[in-house]
């Protein structure tokens, strides 16, 4: 696992935000490594543990608990559609299906449950997530770090074109 110098410096700087306990830097470090590598490998988990003077289990238990961390790669572009009540009332379920259709993602029966669905070419992945805190502009979604409000099914093809 190669950690570029710039990222390594960034990690060292982030650890200084927690002068009382390095362990507090676990979540920020996991975010940084997942942003860089796309997911958190066993090696990355072990690396973070060593960096913070912890056992790998102390880090693995975080990765398996917090929904945003993943142990396998997502698609090149990761789509999160909000599933919770106000968005569901605004049409989040058909919106998810429309995203899947246009992103060539095969949604198995009961696919709303799948943690991460990916297109065969690896270009897109999709996740039905809990409340994204924008219930007034339902339905909402995120593509990578970009946030979209009042997303109509018709707008999906246009939206996906931005993410090639």
């Amino acid at each position, binding site marked *: 696992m190669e950690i570029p110098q710039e990222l390594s410096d960034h990690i060292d700087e982030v650890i200084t935000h927690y*002068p009382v306990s390095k362990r507090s830097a676990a979540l920020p470090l996991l*975010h940084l490594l997942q942003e860089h590598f796309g997911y958190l490998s066993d090696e990355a988990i072990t690396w973070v543990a060593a960096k913070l003077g912890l056992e790998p289990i102390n880090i693995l238990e*975080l990765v398996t608990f917090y*929904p945003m*961390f993943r142990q396998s790669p997502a698609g090149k572009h990761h789509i999160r559609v909000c599933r919770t009540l106000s968005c569901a009332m605004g049409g989040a379920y058909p919106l998810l299906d429309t995203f899947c259709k246009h992103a060539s993602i095969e949604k198995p029966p009961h*696919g709303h449950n799948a943690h991460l669905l990916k297109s065969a070419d690896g270009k897109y992945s999709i996740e039905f997530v*809990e409340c994204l*805190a924008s219930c*007034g502009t339902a339905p909402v979604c995120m593509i990578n770090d970009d946030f979209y409000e009042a997303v109509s099914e018709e707008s999906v093809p246009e939206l996906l074109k931005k993410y090639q």
Partner: protein
Amino acid sequence: MPAIARTPHPRERRIIFKNIDREGWTPDIDCYLKDGGYEELKKALTMPPQDIVAEVKTSGLRGRGGAGFPCGAKWGFIRPGETKPIYLICNADESEPGTFKDRYIIHQDPHQLLEGMIISCFAVNARLAYIYIRGEFPLGAKILEQAIQEAKNHGFLGKNILGSGFDLEIYVHRGAGAYICGEETGMVESLEGKRPYPRIKPPYFPAALGLYMSPTIVNNVETLCNVKHIVKMGGAEYAKIGRPNNTGTRLLCVSGDVQRPGYFELETGGLTMGELIYDICGGLRPGRKLKAVIPGGSSAKVLRADERYKIKTKQPDGTTVEEEIGIDDIRIDFDSLAAVGSMAGSGGVIVMDDSRDMVWALNNINDFYAHESCGQCTPCREGSLWMSKITTRLLDGGGADGDTDILKSVADNIAGRTICAFGEACAWPTQSFIAKFPDEFLAYASKNGKSSSAEAAEHKSDDKPKASGTGH
């Protein structure tokens, strides 16, 4: 962030949201300073810290995160002459479904939050503070980090702030998608780099034993912003806004079946549910009637539109009068919503019209709580999942006689039997939906999936999500 452009409604009183959607407003410090920003910090730094705490107590400010606990009292738990370091955490997890207010402060007016935070840290003598922001706000985290850097460059943060001798560092800490991190002791655990398992009480407040086993104040974004305005106008003047014991303004977030959903800042208790839904949010869609309202985030007990509520109101002469009111006449404040058996919670108002299937709606909520239970306490870990499985089964046409009783029994056995308030949060929806709409549940249980609601079929999905349990 592409915010919905909207002008404030004439009935709004914008204090905290003064700069939200304001023309020409930008989140940088120059814009904030030009508008008189950080003047309250300068004022606060000339005050003895205990005087600021006293002003906040006088203001009657109640926490805006959900529980409505008096902020001054919380701060008062810090012992005078405390020798351990004191920490402050800003709860920017904004994770209660139906709530979307802090998002706009963070993205559009980060310096207001920082100013409120710095004043609050000075008041409680905290020298290290964190903004715990939900992981799903990556842009918000960047904006806050930028704002912190700007504040540092201007001497509002760091060593010897504005020559006062007070030192403070604030760091942004990103969560990673877990609702339970909004619970304050779960947040403390998460910030310590652990799973966010809420802590057993007592100690009842992190102010006694919090981050790194030190006294810690955890306040919501909106609460901390209010502190700036309390310093500006004085606690007594602030207390004149709103109603006794429900002071200040309240940010209300309205979503669901209204013509104009959105966020509104109103004097606490300054309007009724009917005024909010019909006057401010434009009423329901044409041809639709109000069916139900969840008034304070998804865990608040649901209110049925045609229900009559007996409430006791205190008269100016000290006597209490009992009156019967309908949903339209419920005043939106902490005490009134508690009096009708629900809560003001986090200010998230979810409106449902007569096209909504209540079993479907409860199932959506149950799925949420089953997904978000941290798994620490058996009644909640198992019960939230059972409730979600039962409502899913009802929707899928597999209902059985007695399902409604089982649901209620499961919910009753969670509430009050868990370490944290998540137990109540996940039990209250089931308890209230069944109590308020028993016919719909019984219909599913006996008719195997034929709802009386007109559009039930439309909402029903063949592939309902199955609750996935802890974390994933």
